[in-house]
């Protein structure tokens, strides 16, 4: 493995290096052409050559160590899954990086969707070891949340406050309460997005 590309998966984030010199590019071209033809002997050297490049590219693309490691692994699997389709007349490195970039984009979209997911998944408990700056940020966020709540219908505010334990639960059947809470959170998300652009 190329140590310059990052060592093991727990190594700190280093400057990415997805570059290959001309000899390595030629070797990659040759190895992928052989793989496309069905030469299994080309597999181990192709893996050795591709893994550091894939990992370095994913790191530079995502700028997140853990996410980049997952994306690089998925991308490498995808490259080998599609190796039989590789056209030897085309340059290999752009083809590989195209597959990796696509995988990274997919992972980033998934991560963003998760972040925009239900509030139930968020951990709202205060951190006892928080710094004064973090406390100030928390207070700002609280004020912003209250401002967003301010524009919502009373029933929505009641449901959200009951959900976070700041008020008593209204006398409703559980299914009705869940439905009302779901609608309230949806409206809150929309209100927040309108005020601050993102959630």
């Amino acid at each position, binding site marked *: 493995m190329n140590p310059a590309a990052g060592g093991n998966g727990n190594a700190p984030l280093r400057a990415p290096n997805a570059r290959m010199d001309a000899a390595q590019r030629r070797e990659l071209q040759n190895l992928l052409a052989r793989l496309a033809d069905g030469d299994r002997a080309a597999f181990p050297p192709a893996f050795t050559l591709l893994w550091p490049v894939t990992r370095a590219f994913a790191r530079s693309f995502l700028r997140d160590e853990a996410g980049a490691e997952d994306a690089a692994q998925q991308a490498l699997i995808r490259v080998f*899954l599609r190796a039989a389709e590789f056209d030897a007349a085309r340059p290999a490195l752009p083809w590989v990086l195209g597959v990796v970039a696509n995988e990274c984009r997919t992972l980033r979209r998934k991560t963003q969707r998760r972040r925009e997911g239900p509030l139930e998944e968020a951990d709202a408990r205060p951190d006892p070891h928080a710094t004064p700056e973090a406390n100030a940020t928390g207070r700002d966020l609280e004020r912003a949340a209250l401002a967003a709540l301010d524009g919502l219908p009373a029933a929505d505010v009641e449901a959200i406050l009951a959900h976070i334990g700041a008020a008593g639960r209204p006398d409703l059947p559980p299914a009705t309460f869940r439905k009302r809470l779901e609608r309230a959170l949806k409206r809150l998300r929309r209100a927040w997005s309108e005020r601050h652009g993102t959630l």
Partner: protein
Amino acid sequence: MEPSEAALLARARRAYEQGRLRAALWRAAPLVPVVAWTWSWCRYPALAALCGAALVALTVAFSWRGQVWGRAVVPGLAAGLAPLVLPWLMRGASDVCVGEMCCSLCLLGCVGGGLVAGVLVGRRAASLDEGRGTFLAAAGALALLAGAPACAFAGVMGLAGLLLGFAGGTAPVLLARAPA
């Protein structure tokens, strides 16, 4: 190599084989309607089904295996068109007589189709530096399996004529281009 990398290597290898199999299945997919069409008119539907199944299975296997086996698929199938189409076109024709010797035109189509297939496969095999035997075996098997249902119109003689024609077309080309 670290354990995590060894596991990734194994996963990547499995993905590579899966990808090859998927590509091989796509490559063989257009054969399915051809096999169904052959089965619809073949004199012996069971033979057509058997040959068709073997043709599809070998196409998948050779394409998945790759290298010389994989490179033989397209020439083999292309060569197989001649013994498939010629006897099919001549199946309704009457016998041809030269003097006192009479022969079914369909049988002649089998021999002629086999000959054309043999020349095509033989020429391609002769141009290879290595793996001629493998290429000949793979492409020949596909060409013969493709042509067999049509040659069954002429019965066992038709199948024998196909084999004879193929051998007759292949041998001279290979002998002429064999290295000294």
